[in-house]
C-alpha cells in the first residue's frame, strides 16, 4: 500500500513539474527562513547556561524612585555581598565585580593600556564555570595584587610562554602576580573582560559604604532554595543597613523618605535572565551595566519567532492552496479509489503521506540552504555569534528536525487531505462538473498577504525611524568630529598635545572630556542653593575642559561657558536645560550647586555659571537627562578627546594627528573614530533588525507571490472555457482581464484591512523604545498596501493575459 502511494506521489511530482517546483521551492525557502531564525533565537536563549550552577546564580539589582527619579541599576554597594552571606544561610556564596579604571600593564618590553580589567572576589570561579589553562581557580584571586588573564591576553603579552608566576608592572609602580590563565569568556556570556584582578587589591572593596553603588553582586543559592520568596528578606537589609547609613551621611530619614512616595529596594534577577530580560523585564538601565556586557532584548526574539512562523505559514498555505486548486486533477483518482474499496481514512493517510514526503524533500533542500547561508548570516551579525546547524552535535537535533518535518507535512497536507477525500465518487465519476468553491482558499491568500503587508509596513517604519534618528538635530554639530578614545595615554601632556594639534591646518579646535554616547556616564546627587536639605536630585555629570562648547558647538541659553580667564571657574559648573528644569528655581545662573559626596560625608559647593541648550549626549532611546559639567584637569575617566576638523578629509587629517600623537605617547597606538560612525553604532541593534526584517519581508512576499502565481494559473485554466464563451459573446481582452483580476484585488484589499491595525499596534510598540520617534503616517500604510496590490497584480498578469488573449476556438473546440 505504502509503495503504491509513494509511486503515485513521485509520478505526480514529476508530471506536474511547475506545480511541484513551486511547492517545493516555496516550502524549502519557508523552512530555511524558519530554521535560520530558530537557530538564532535558540542561541539567544542559551546565554550563560554554560555555567554549571546557572540555575542557582542570581544578580542583585536596585530599584528606586527618589524625588521623582525612577531608576533600576545593576550596581550595588560594596558590603552587600558579605552581609547577605552572613545573614542568610540560604546563600552559599557571593562574588562581586568592580571597576577601577584603566591600567597600564607592562611585561618586559610589552606595554599596553588596558581598559577591560575588572576586580573580582576570590569566589568568582567557584560560582562561574570558567575553565583554566594554567593555575588554580580556587586560589587564583585570594591574595591582593593577583591577576587572572584570558588566553587572548596571555598571547598578547607572553606569546607561547606560560605566563603563570610572571608579573606585570602596573601603572609603573605596582606589581601584579599572574596566578591564572583562563580560557576566553564564552561568546554566550553576558559579561566578558580580558583581566580579572583580585578585589583585595583595593581596600575600597572592603568598605562599609551602603549608598555608593559601584559593584555588581552575584549570589549563589544553596540547592533547593526558592529565591522567589527572597525579595522580602532583602527589605531588611535596606531598613537595617542602608537607611541608618544614609541618615548619618545625607541626613535622610526613612519615614520621611517613604512618606514622600519614594522607594528603594534590593531585588534578585536570575543569571539566565540578564542577557535577554534586563531591559525588557527588569527595566535595568543599560547605562549602569559594565562596558563589555552583552545584552539583547527578548522583544526582538519574539519578532524573529513571529517572522519565522509567519514565513513558514505562508509556505504551508501555498501548499494547501495549490493542492486543493489542483484537486480537479486528483478528484478522479479519489473517485476511482473509493469505488475500488478505499475508505476515507486511507485516502486521508495517502494525501498526508504525500505532503509529508514533499515536505521532507523541501526540508533536505532547506537544510543544505541553511548550511550555506549561516556563515554569511554570522558575518552579517559581525561574528557576535557562531550560529551553526549540525545534525550530530546533539542526539536530539535529528529527531527534532524529523518531527518538525512531520508536523509541517501534516499541517500542509491536512486540509487538502480532508477536502479531497470528501469527494463523492458518484459525483466525480458521473463527470458532473459541480462547482466546488472553497472559501478557505481565499482566506489563506488573504492571510498570506496580510502577513506580507504587515512586514512591508514594519520595514518602512523601521527605515523611517532609523533615518530620523540618524539625521535628527542633536543640539550640537555632529559632523566633522574625530574622537580619540584612548586619550588618557597622553597623561599630563594633554594640554601640550592640544596646543600642538591646533597647529594642524585642518583642525579647528579640540576638547577632552569624559565619555559620552555610550554606557557608563557617571551620575551623582546634587542639591541647589535654597532647597530643603534632603531635596537632592540625580544628575549625570561630564568632566570637560574649556573648549568643549566651542568644539561640539553646543549653544548657551544663559550665562557663559567655562573661561580660562576666570580663575574661579575651577569650582564652577555649567548645567543643561534639563537640569535647570528639575531644580526649578528660575534662572539658576549664579546660584550655588552642592554635590553630595557619599564617601567622605560632605557636600562640595560649585557656582553655576551657565546653562547650555539641551543636546543629546546619549542615544535617542533616552530622553535628555539632567547634566552637570565640571571643569577638570585630566582624570583617569576622561578619555574622550574630540577634534573638530574643517573639511571632511578624514584620512589625511587622521594621518597628521597620528604623527603628533606618536610624538606625545612614544608611538602608542591611536584609537580613534569619526563621531558620526560612532553615533550610528548606537543603533546597531535596530539597524540589524531592520535589515533582517527587510530581507525576510522580501522573502515572505516572494513566497506569497509564488503561491499566487500558481493559483492564478489554476484558476485561469479552470475558467478557460468560460473565457472562451465570453469572448465569443463579444468581451474584450481588457474586460476579461478586469474580470479575472477582480477576485485577486479583492483579496489583497481585505488583507490590507487586516494588516493595518496589526502593523500599527506592533510598530507603535517598537517605537516606544525610542524617546525620540517619528510619527507613523497614514501614507506608510497606503503606500505599502498599494505596493502589495501592484506586486500581486504583476504576479498574476502574465497568466491572466495569456488566458484573456487566447483564441476562444482553442478552448471550445473540444468538449
Amino acid at each position, binding site marked *: 500500500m505504502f509503495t503504491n502511494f509513494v509511486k503515485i506521489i513521485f*509520478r505526480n511530482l514529476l508530471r506536474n513539474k511547475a506545480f511541484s517546483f513551486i511547492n517545493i521551492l516555496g516550502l524549502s525557502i519557508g523552512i530555511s527562513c524558519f530554521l535560520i531564525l530558530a537557530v538564532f533565537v535558540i542561541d539567544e536563549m542559551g546565554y550563560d547556561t554554560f555555567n554549571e550552577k546557572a540555575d542557582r546564580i542570581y544578580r542583585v539589582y536596585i530599584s528606586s524612585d527618589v524625588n521623582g527619579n525612577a531608576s533600576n541599576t545593576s550596581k550595588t554597594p560594596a558590603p552587600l555581598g558579605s552581609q547577605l552571606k552572613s545573614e542568610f544561610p540560604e546563600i552559599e556564596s557571593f562574588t562581586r565585580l568592580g571597576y577601577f579604571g584603566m591600567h597600564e600593564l607592562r611585561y618586559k618590553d610589552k606595554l599596553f593600556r588596558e581598559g577591560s580589567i575588572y576586580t573580582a572576589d576570590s569566589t568568582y570561579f567557584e560560582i562561574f564555570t570558567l575553565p583554566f589553562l594554567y593555575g588554580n581557580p580556587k586560589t587564583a584571586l585570594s591574595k591582593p595584587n593577583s591577576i587572572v588573564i584570558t588566553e587572548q591576553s596571555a598571547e598578547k603579552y607572553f606569546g607561547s610562554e606560560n605566563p603563570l608566576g610572571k608579573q606585570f608592572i602596573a601603572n609603573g609602580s605596582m606589581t601584579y602576580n599572574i596566578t591564572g590563565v583562563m580560557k576566553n569568556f564564552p561568546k554566550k556570556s553576558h559579561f566578558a573582560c580580558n583581566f580579572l584582578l583580585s578585589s583585595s587589591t583595593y581596600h575600597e572593596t572592603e568598605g562599609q559604604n551602603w549608598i555608593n553603588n559601584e559593584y555588581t553582586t552575584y549570589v549563589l543559592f544553596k540547592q533547593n532554595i526558592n529565591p522567589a520568596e527572597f525579595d522580602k528578606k532583602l527589605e531588611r537589609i535596606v531598613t537595617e543597613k542602608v537607611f541608618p547609613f544614609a541618615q548619618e551621611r545625607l541626613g535622610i530619614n526613612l519615614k520621611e523618605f517613604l512618606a514622600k512616595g519614594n522607594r528603594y529596594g534590593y531585588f534578585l534577577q536570575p543569571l539566565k535572565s540578564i542577557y535577554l530580560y534586563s531591559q525588557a523585564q527588569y527595566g535595568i538601565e543599560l547605562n549602569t551595566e559594565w562596558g563589555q556586557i552583552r545584552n539583547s532584548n527578548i522583544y526582538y526574539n519574539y519578532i524573529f519567532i513571529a517572522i519565522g512562523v509567519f514565513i513558514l505559514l505562508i509556505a504551508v498555505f501555498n501548499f494547501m492552496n495549490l493542492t486543493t486548486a489542483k484537486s480537479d486533477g486528483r478528484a478522479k483518482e479519489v473517485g*476511482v479509489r*473509493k*469505488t*475500488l474499496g478505499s475508505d476515507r481514512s486511507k485516502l486521508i493517510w495517502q494525501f498526508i503521506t504525500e505532503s509529508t514526503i514533499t515536505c521532507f524533500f523541501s526540508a533536505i533542500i532547506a537544510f543544505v540552504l541553511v548550511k550555506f547561508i549561516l556563515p554569511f548570516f554570522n558575518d552579517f551579525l559581525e561574528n557576535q555569534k557562531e550560529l551553526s546547524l549540525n545534525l550530530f552535535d546533539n542526539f536530539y537535533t535529528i529527531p527534532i528536525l524529523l518531527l518538525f518535518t512531520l508536523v509541517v507535512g501534516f499541517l500542509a497536507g491536512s486540509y487538502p487531505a480532508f477536502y479531497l477525500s470528501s469527494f463523492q465518487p458518484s459525483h466525480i465519476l*458521473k463527470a458532473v462538473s459541480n462547482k466546488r468553491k472553497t472559501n478557505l482558499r481565499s482566506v489563506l491568500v488573504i492571510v498570506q498577504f496580510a502577513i506580507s503587508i504587515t512586514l512591508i509596513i514594519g520595514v518602512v517604519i523601521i527605515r523611517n525611524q532609523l533615518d530620523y534618528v540618524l539625521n535628527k538635530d542633536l543640539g550640537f554639530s555632529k559632523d566633522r568630529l574625530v574622537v580619540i578614545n584612548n586619550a588618557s595615554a597622553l597623561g599630563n601632556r594633554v594640554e601640550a598635545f592640544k596646543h600642538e594639534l591646533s597647529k594642524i591646518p585642518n583642525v579647528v579646535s579640540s576638547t577632552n572630556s569624559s565619555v559620552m554616547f555610550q554606557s557608563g556616564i557617571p551620575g551623582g546627587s546634587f542639591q541647589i542653593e535654597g532647597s530643603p536639605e534632603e531635596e537632592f536630585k540625580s544628575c549625570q555629570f561630564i568632566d570637560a575642559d574649556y573648549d568643549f562648547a566651542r568644539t561640539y558647538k553646543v549653544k548657551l541659553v544663559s550665562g557663559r561657558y567655562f573661561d580660562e580667564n576666570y580663575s574661579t571657574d575651577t569650582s564652577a559648573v555649567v548645567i543643561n536645560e534639563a537640569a535647570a528644569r528639575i531644580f526649578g528655581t528660575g534662572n539658576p545662573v549664579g546660584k550655588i550647586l552642592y554635590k553630595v559626596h557619599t564617601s567622605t560625608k560632605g557636600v562640595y559647593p560649585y557656582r553655576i555659571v551657565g546653562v547650555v541648550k539641551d543636546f543629546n549626549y546619549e542615544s535617542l532611546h533616552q530622553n535628555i537627562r539632567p547634566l552637570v559639567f565640571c571643569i577638570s584637569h585630566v582624570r583617569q575617566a576622561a578619555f574622550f578627546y574630540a577634534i573638530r576638523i574643517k573639511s571632511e578629509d578624514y584620512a589625511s587629517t587622521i594621518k597628521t594627528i597620528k604623527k603628533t600623537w606618536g610624538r606625545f605617547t612614544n608611538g602608542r597606538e591611536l584609537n580613534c573614530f569619526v563621531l558620526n560612525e560612532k553615533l550610528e553604532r548606537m543603533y546597531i541593534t535596530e539597524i540589524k533588525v531592520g535589515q533582517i526584517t527587510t530581507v525576510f519581508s522580501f522573502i515572505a512576499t516572494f513566497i506569497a507571490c509564488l503561491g499566487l502565481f500558481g493559483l492564478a494559473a489554476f484558476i485561469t485554466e479552470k475558467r478557460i472555457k468560460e473565457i472562451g464563451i465570453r469572448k465569443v459573446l463579444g468581451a474584450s481582452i481588457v474586460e476579461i482581464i478586469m474580470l479575472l483580476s477582480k477576485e485577486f484585488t479583492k483579496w489583497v484589499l481585505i488583507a490590507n484591512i487586516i494588516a493595518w491595525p496589526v502593523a500599527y499596534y506592533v510598530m507603535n510598540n517598537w517605537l516606544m523604545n525610542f524617546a525620540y520617534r517619528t510619527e507613523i503616517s497614514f501614507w506608510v500604510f497606503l503606500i505599502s498596501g498599494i505596493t502589495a496590490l501592484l506586486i500581486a497584480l504583476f504576479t498574476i498578469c502574465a497568466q491572466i493575459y495569456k488566458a484573456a488573449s487566447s483564441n476562444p476556438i482553442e478552448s471550445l473546440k473540444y468538449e
Partner: protein
Amino acid sequence: MIKLLGVSKYYQNKFDKTYILRNINLEIKEGEFVSIMGPSGAGKSTLLYIIGMLDSASEGEYYFLDEQVHKMKEKRLTELHKSHIGFVFQQYHLIDELTVYENIETPLLYQKVSGSERKGKVAELLDRFNMVAKKDLFPNQLSGGQQQLAAIARAIISKPKLILADEPTGNLHSDQGKEIMQLLKKLNDEGTTIIQVTHSEENAKYGNRIIKLSDGWIEKE
C-alpha cells in the same frame, strides 16, 4: 441478492425536491445479467451507484445479500462493496499515474492481499486478457478498448459477486464494444451477476433482463 423497496432519490432545493428516482421496487437474483435502459436523465446511473453503494437513497430500503444497506455504517458499506462489487465505467477511470499492472493490483491492496498472491492473481488476469505485453504501460498509452479491458480486469480481480457497468462500451467503436460485451457475457456465464446501464438495444441483448427507466420511474419489465 439485491432487493430495493420503495427507493427514491431526490435533491432538496430551497422550496421543493427534485426527484431523480421515484419509488423503485426491484429484485435482482444472483447470476442475472440485467440491463438498465432509458433516456438521458432518467436516473440510470444514479440507480447503478445506489446499488453499488457509492450513493445513498433518500428514502426506501435496500437489501444486499439480505443485509440492510440503508442502515449500514460507512465502514461496513466500504467493506461490503469492496469485497463483492466491481465497477466498470464508460470513461474507464483508470488511475493515470499508475501502470496497467498497478491499476489492476490496486483493489487487492485495499483488501490486504499478500504480495505473492497479488502477483499471481494479476499475472493470471493479464494472461487471460492477453495484456502481458502492455502491463508496464500507462493508461494514456493504450487504446480505448485496451483501457476498458484493463478496467474490467481491475473490476474482477477480487472475484466480486456483482459487476456494475456504466455504459461500458459507450466510448468504444463497435468491434471493441463487441469484444467487451462478450467478455461480460462470459463472466456472467461463469456465475457473476452483472448490471449494466446502456443505450444500445444490441448490448442489452447480451443480458437476460431489461429494466426501463423513465423520469425516475421504472416503466416496465
